[in-house]
């Protein structure tokens, strides 16, 4: 227990110190984590931590990340990507494998080892690339989309690779392995796959296929059918942690299912994410999973940094660096060629080339698997491990190269398509009750994109039936606001009905997102002052307008001419507004208005004054209700003409 606490503390300290520094220096969070990992690696050694097993645990961050990526990607978009997925992604894996294999053959490896190395190194790092693309806001660019297609294809390609690798086993290695069986596979990722193969092993091939298809079906159907009732069931409690637990349950459950049937858990959760991309619980799921993903990925990057065997690196420094550079060059060349072939142009092609040239975390998994399956000798695998880690370590540097050198050059050309950001310029409506609902309808009818957040399942399902896009969640939570896109939103409409929460939300938004316009609902006059103090300038008292209209109807029903009733109402609203402004300076949030003497005094004075004005003075034709045409006085005109 003590060890776990100390160990967690060490990781957290390293991350908390290194990442802000790296970000400030413009290096990006990934490099920060990697450096933090390198710095703490002696400490981890002293604690006797198994960095590799920790890394496999942290890889779950990748699974979560793909779930989140899936949430952002509707099935329709995935279908539009299919050509790139198969063509661009498939060719990248095949060509990279071929090039690396050829190089390995040239270096004197037998073809089985060369092929295995090719497969291992053809994959790129989903964790680093996606994290960096998201951080830089490049996900929706052409290069980002291309990178994502390739990563997804690689993820799919891992499955046949895992099936293929054991077939490459070398007899003399199997023998060597059986002697040293105790040392290999303990806690390594290969062990996991071994287990899953055991489960599937008891079935015939056609049964296996059936089970696999069935598992995918469970994810797709379960995701679309079961999530809603599940969340509705949980929503009753209104406990935030229960939502987090539910979200984690879904992700971990799917990952477990996929592992059992021998599919990639990342792929499974990605699929579940896509299925849920249209769900009203999307933003809730996103904000629940996101912190876990972030922490696990951070841990993962640190283990990559910590996992570098500096002893081995020192011994083979020249050759490892040469191999790493050669790998980056070879994969980069393949990517550049494919970018040309698939018409990814300009800066985007360079983004693909530089961003995806490294080897990835799947290489770690595959390497331990190849060693366990007696395909690659341990000594070679250790060196490849270094190449993989080093290539990952260099990736942030390549991204910096892209940022500083490539992007500015192409930006000057001005032929770049603007990035498409889904929620950009949209309006977030917090609360879709009787107040927010009307606002939503008005904004949508006039062509604005709205993102509706509400805490009532029933309300949301009603909205869904009418074809609106609405999401479940508590809008006062900063993380949910963030996933709803507050940073890119044009406006926030605060239409929830809890006074304190409204003020809190307005305050949070004016402080953190001063560029977002806010229209807020106020419960009464004092609340108006509160919201004004919180920085909001469009404040609407929620029942004032309807009360005024009801008053006008009452006057009309009592026999007042409709136009007179209208004029009276206008005048009343004007007076109220005057009083609102006049009393603002006397309002004291710490004293209830009724006990605030100067406030009460001034209010009384205003009321009396307004009553006098409304009743009109002697010459009622000129009271302020009736400003308008008065015929000229003949006597005055004649007097003027005479003078």
């Amino acid at each position, binding site marked *: 227990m003590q060890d776990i606490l100390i160990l967690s503390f060490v990781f957290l300290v390293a991350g908390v110190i290194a990442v802000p520094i790296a970000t400030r220096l413009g290096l990006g969070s990934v490099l920060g984590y990697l450096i933090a990992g390198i710095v703490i690696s002696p400490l981890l050694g002293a604690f006797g931590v198994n960095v590799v097993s920790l890394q496999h645990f942290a890889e779950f961050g990748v699974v979560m990340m793909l779930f989140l990526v899936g949430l952002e990607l509707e099935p329709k978009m995935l279908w539009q990507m299919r050509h790139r997925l198969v063509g661009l992604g498939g060719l990248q894996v095949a060509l990279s494998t071929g090039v690396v294999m050829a190089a390995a053959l040239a270096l004197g490896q037998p073809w089985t080892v060369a092929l295995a190395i090719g497969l291992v190194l053809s994959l790129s790092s989903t964790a680093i690339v996606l994290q960096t693309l998201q951080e830089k806001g490049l996900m929706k660019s052409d290069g980002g989309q291309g990178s994502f297609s390739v990563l997804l294809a690689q993820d799919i390609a891992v499955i046949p690779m895992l099936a293929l690798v054991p077939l490459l086993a070398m007899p003399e290695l199997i023998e060597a392995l059986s002697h040293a069986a105790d040392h290999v596979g303990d806690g390594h990722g290969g062990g996991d796959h071994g287990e899953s193969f055991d489960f599937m092993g008891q079935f015939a091939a056609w049964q296996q296929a059936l089970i696999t298809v069935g598992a995918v079906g469970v994810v797709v159907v379960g995701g679309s059918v079961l999530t809603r009732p599940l969340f509705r069931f949980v929503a009753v409690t209104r406990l935030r942690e229960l939502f987090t637990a539910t979200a984690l349950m879904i992700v971990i459950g799917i990952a477990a299912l996929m592992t059992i049937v021998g599919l990639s858990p990342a792929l499974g959760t990605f699929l579940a994410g896509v299925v849920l991309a249209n769900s009203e619980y999307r933003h809730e799921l996103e904000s629940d999973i996101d912190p876990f993903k972030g922490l696990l990925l951070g841990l993962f990057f640190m283990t990559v940094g910590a996992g570098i065997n500096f002893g081995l690196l020192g011994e083979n420094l020249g050759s490892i660096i040469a191999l790493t550079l050669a790998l980056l060059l070879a994969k980069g060349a393949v990517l550049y060629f494919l970018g040309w072939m698939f018409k990814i142009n300009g800066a985007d092609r360079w983004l693909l080339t530089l961003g995806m040239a490294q080897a990835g975390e799947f290489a770690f998994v595959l390497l331990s698997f190849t060693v366990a399956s007696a395909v690659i000798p341990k000594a070679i695998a250790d060196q490849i491990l270094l190449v993989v880690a080093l290539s990952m370590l260099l990736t942030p540097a390549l991204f910096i190269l892209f940022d500083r050198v490539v992007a500015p050059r192409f930006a000057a050309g001005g032929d770049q398509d603007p990035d498409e950001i889904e929620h950009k310029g949209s309006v977030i409506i917090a609360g879709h009750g009787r107040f927010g609902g009307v606002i939503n309808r008005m904004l949508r009818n006039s062509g604005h994109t709205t993102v509706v957040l509400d805490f009532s399942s029933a309300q949301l399902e009603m909205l869904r039936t009418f074809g609106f896009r609405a999401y479940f969640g508590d809008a006062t939570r900063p993380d949910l606001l963030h996933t709803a896109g507050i940073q890119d939103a044009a406006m926030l409409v605060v239409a929830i009905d809890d006074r304190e929460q409204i003020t809190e939300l307005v305050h949070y938004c004016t402080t953190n997102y001063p560029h977002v316009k806010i229209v807020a609902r106020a419960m009464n006059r004092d609340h108006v002052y509160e919201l004004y103090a919180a920085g909001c300038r469009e404040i609407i008292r929620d029942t004032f307008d309807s009360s005024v209209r009801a008053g006008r109807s009452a006057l009309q029903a009592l026999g007042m*001419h*409709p*136009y*007179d*009733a*209208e004029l009276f109402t206008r005048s009343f609203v004007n007076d109220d507004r005057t009083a609102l402004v006049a009393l603002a300076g006397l309002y004291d949030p710490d004293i209830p208005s009724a006990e605030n003497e100067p406030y009460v005094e001034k209010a009384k004075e205003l009321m009396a004054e307004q009553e006098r004005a409304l009743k009109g003075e002697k010459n009622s034709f000129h009271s302020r209700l*009736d400003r308008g*045409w008065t*015929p000229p006085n003949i006597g005055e005109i004649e007097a003027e*003409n005479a003078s």
Partner: protein
Amino acid sequence: MARVLVYYAHPGARYSRVNTRMAKAAEQIDDITFVDLYARYPRQVIDADAEQQLLRDHDVIVFQFPLFWYSTPSIIKEWQDLVLEQGFAYGKGGTELAGKTMMLAISAAGPEDAYTEAGYQHFSLRTFLTPLEQTARLCKMRFATPYVLYAALKAEEDTQIASHVDGYRRILTALRDDTLDLDAIEAAAPVLTCSSSLIPGDT
């Protein structure tokens, strides 16, 4: 029988001595349509479709209003802007009002002699009404001689106003019954007043 529509417009109805009484009289005549524009549109948001249909359904359109700044109260201008659309009232296909009659019933604060070149209003009342007259012409409507009360603010309740209101009632009734000789009235004088013998009496 002609279908008569009366549009009444007075933003300060409760201070009116002449127009309110005229409006009450008009309302009480059977088989004519009476519309208080400021009551129907207190927010001055006019439903052009409904108004156009109302115009289609009538043959004689009477505007009753006090003269403000040598023109109509603002709601009638707004009504004109929105209801008399191209393609409805004028222009290509705009023949919906063709053949109908427009008549004005106006109260003016100035005395009759003010509306002369020597008077302080400098122009004749008909000159001030030419925009409306031309409006009627563009819409292929007949612009009937306006029914006028001069010096309306100084008019005696029991005598002048009462007979003006009664003349108004008789005009509307005669318009409804097709017994008003518009040609003779037009030939007689530029404006029609309650003393005219061309307004039929009660039968």
